[in-house]
């Protein structure tokens, strides 16, 4: 029943005056009608030419044809996005051969789809917006004269990068496949690992006018439904003209904008994303982005590597312990050294103190400035190494690390002791598996150094406690960042020790899934 036909009493009960309700309903109806495909092919052609600026935009291919020698039609596709061979073989050739005698004009699209199209993925639509979106995605739209419907055929055939090795998340024992920019390929990579009927890949519009697609991948019945609803609600609220990537989507849907730590794990490895999905989490794939986002995360997720479970338990424990110690060392060592050297020299043994004094004899910078300067130089070398291509990047790392360090010591800008501390810090920083966490730690380290310069160990204590408290208050999509340590959950995850792999009958309760193991 249409809205304007409702009784005045019914409308009044909703609080809207009947006159305005009718006017509103009529306008909505007109808008709906404007969004429908007209039956006149000429009008459709004009609409498409105007919409895609065909006069200047030569990418749009409008191929007129006569179906079965009787009905005029138009095959519309985007050059480069659609596969020409598929269009010629599976759309144009059968279109010329089909017999459509006696079929009413309004039924031709459905008849053509059923009897001529030898294609797997086709769709009938009467919405203009759907047609436009499909053409932009690389599909081919067939419009018929006298029919208010179009057939959308999947002819996507654009060039994309093949599946390659991951560049940033290297493993020795784990699989060696990485996500690509093609969202379909990425879904396939996940599906090849998760061969389960309850594995759902929900395609959605990312929001905004760009028409970017994103995929929410999760295990239905395992993932927490309230988490899923909340993520969907937040994704629905995205409305931006910006090109979307996983990192940008994260910032658009996260809770704590000013927190340096990430609230979503970003991985280029399908096996890591699949493991997270099996653990009751949600993987987020964005079209054009070779990275998957995993949510919710905890601090353990950021400090674990993909191949931790591939190693034997004792070896895994040693590797995990070294990693944790490296992370702690890289965070606190420079600040602790500064605090001892500047405010509590009595805590250093006379031998160490003599070494420090001797190495700094000719250095003109104050110790704190020297430390912060070197930490910033380290970040500079690292960023430079990342931004330049492959082999040159490695060379920059070596040049920056060896030559610059040696030259700085010779020029009495920095002392050898500080150089050793910064080098150890840098090494420790690289054991943190997640890149975002590495960067966040680097800046937290500089903050600690400033605090140590100002108030020695008191400064480190206060800054450390504040940082811990802030991290304890943070939740990644409702899951506390320090789970399963605070709050304590049933299935513990040790940061230092790797637990034995047993037969697990479901995901752990860390991310609060709907179905969990006993």
């Amino acid at each position, binding site marked *: 029943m249409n809205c304007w036909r409702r009784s005045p009493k019914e409308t009044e009960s909703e609080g809207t005056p009947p006159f305005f309700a009718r006017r509103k309903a009529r306008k909505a109806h007109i808008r709906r009608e404007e969004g429908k495909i007209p039956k006149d092919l000429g009008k459709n052609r004009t609409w498409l030419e105007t919409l895609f600026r065909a006069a200047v935009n030569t990418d749009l291919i409008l191929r007129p044809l006569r179906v079965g020698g009787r009905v005029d039609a138009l095959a519309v596709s985007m050059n480069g996005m659609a596969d020409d061979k598929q269009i010629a073989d599976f759309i144009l050739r059968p279109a010329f051969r089909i017999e459509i005698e006696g079929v009413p004009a309004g039924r031709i699209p459905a008849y053509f789809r059923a009897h001529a199209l030898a294609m797997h993925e086709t769709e009938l639509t009467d919405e203009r917006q759907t047609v436009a979106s499909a053409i932009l995605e690389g599909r081919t739209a067939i419009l018929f004269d006298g029919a208010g419907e179009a057939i959308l055929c999947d002819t996507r055939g654009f060039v994309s990068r093949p599946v390659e090795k991951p560049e940033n998340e290297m493993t020795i024992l784990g699989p060696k496949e990485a996500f690509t920019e093609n969202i379909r390929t990425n879904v396939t990579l996940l599906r090849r690992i998760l061969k389960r009927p309850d594995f759902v890949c929900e395609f959605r519009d990312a929001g905004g006018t760009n028409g970017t697609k994103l995929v929410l991948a999760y295990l239905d019945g395992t993932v927490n439904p309230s988490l899923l609803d909340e993520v969907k609600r937040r994704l629905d609220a995205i409305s931006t003209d910006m090109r979307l990537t996983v990192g940008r989507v994260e910032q658009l849907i996260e809770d704590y904008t000013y927190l340096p730590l990430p609230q979503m794990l970003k991985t280029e490895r399908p096996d890591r994303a699949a493991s997270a999905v099996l653990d009751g989490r949600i993987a987020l794939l964005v079209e054009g982005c070779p990275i998957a986002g995993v949510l919710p995360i905890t601090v353990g997720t950021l400090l674990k590597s993909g191949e931790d479970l591939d190693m034997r338990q004792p070896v895994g424990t040693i590797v995990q312990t070294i990693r944790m110690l490296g992370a702690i060392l890289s965070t606190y060592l420079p600040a*602790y050294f500064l605090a001892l050297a500047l*405010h*509590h020299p*009595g*805590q*250093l*043994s006379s031998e160490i103190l003599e070494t420090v004094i001797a190495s700094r004899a000719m250095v003109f910078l104050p110790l704190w400035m020297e430390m912060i300067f070197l930490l910033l130089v380290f970040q500079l070398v690292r960023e430079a190494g990342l931004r330049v291509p492959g082999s040159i990047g490695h060379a920059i790392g070596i040049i920056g690390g060896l030559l610059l360090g040696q030259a700085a010591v010779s020029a009495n800008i920095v002392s050898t002791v500080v150089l050793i501390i910064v080098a150890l810090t840098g090494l420790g920083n690289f054991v943190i598996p997640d890149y975002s966490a590495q960067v966040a730690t680097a800046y937290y380290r500089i903050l600690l150094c400033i605090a140590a310069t100002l*108030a*020695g*160990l*008191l*400064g*480190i*204590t*206060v800054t*450390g*406690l*504040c940082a*811990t*408290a*802030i991290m*304890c*208050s943070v939740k990644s999509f409702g899951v*506390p960042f*320090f789970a399963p*340590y*605070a*709050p*304590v959950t049933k299935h513990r995850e040790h940061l230092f020790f790797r637990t034995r792999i047993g037969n697990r009958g479901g995901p752990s309760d860390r991310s609060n899934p709907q179905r969990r193991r006993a």
Partner: protein
Amino acid sequence: MNLRMGAFGRQEAASAVLLAMFFGGCFAFDSRALFENGNASWIVEIVACLQALLLFEATVWALRVRGGNDLSALIGDSKLKKALAAPLILALLLAAMQPLEGFLIPITQFVFAGSKQVTACLYLLSCLFLLTVLGAETIVRTARILLPVLLVSILAALLSGIGEYRLDRIFPIPIGEPKMLLTETGSAQLRAAPPLLALLCIGEGTQDRMAMRSAGRIGAIAGGLLSAAALFALSMTFPYTQLREMPAPFYRMLVEVRAENPTLRLDRAVLFLWLMGAILSSGYYIYAACVLFAKTFGVRDARPVALCLSALAVSLILVLHYDTETTLAVLKLLYRNASLLIGIPFPLILLKRRRRKPKCAV
């Protein structure tokens, strides 16, 4: 109401109680009387913990009988009971001052010799502000995260000094002075009862009454035993005549250990690690006081109250250090009579109001 309470579990609440019990128990504001005629500190600590636990059990029982999850449920709308909440808030505030004050002495006298108390207090205040504004969930979770590190450091400090301990130093034990023990146990209520009182104030955040009771029991027993063990270790390290005059005895104990192990110079690192626990304990008390205040007097947002109480606690510590005669005397009086501060309002709050019988219509 924006109380920033959140939700937390038994282990987290027990961790907060344990830390508060330890850091409150080890840093007595006016400890001279404890070492007057022998070392009574560890005995008093154990007895005070047991008393506090009894009080806690009675309150939980009252909550079970009358329904409710926290102390404000027992206070209700009664004006008299609302007035009785004021001494409890004051007790929590004084308890918050105790560990901070205990650490301010070694910081300003030994670590940063000659530095001003104001400067150190400003650092502590910034941390207290953040903790109390972030709320109970954050405080107890931080306590849970830091607890293993703090426990290891405490046990390591106690065990590494074994070579220095001498059992004869614990004598004389003033068992034969019941009057002194009674007075000191009363004073010690300001160290032993506030962790449980604070838990009762933030009980709404726990899963249920049983979780709160369990957390209180575990935290109080473990914390009480740990602080008694630390005080016992202290009494084996220094004779009571030295302890009577000694400022910051725990720091001195760490330094003694260091003197024996010149390669392991971690005394200041350990001191500042413990400072984290002390700040956390103070934050826990102040937040509990602010919740009690907000719930009793109907304040809708706990944050301004938290900021005010934090500033007040730190200001009082500063006043104490600048040695204003009158304030010092008042504070000492309050500490001496801590048993009254907690002992009188509590039973009155627990009392059930008699309902008047409706008059029969004639």
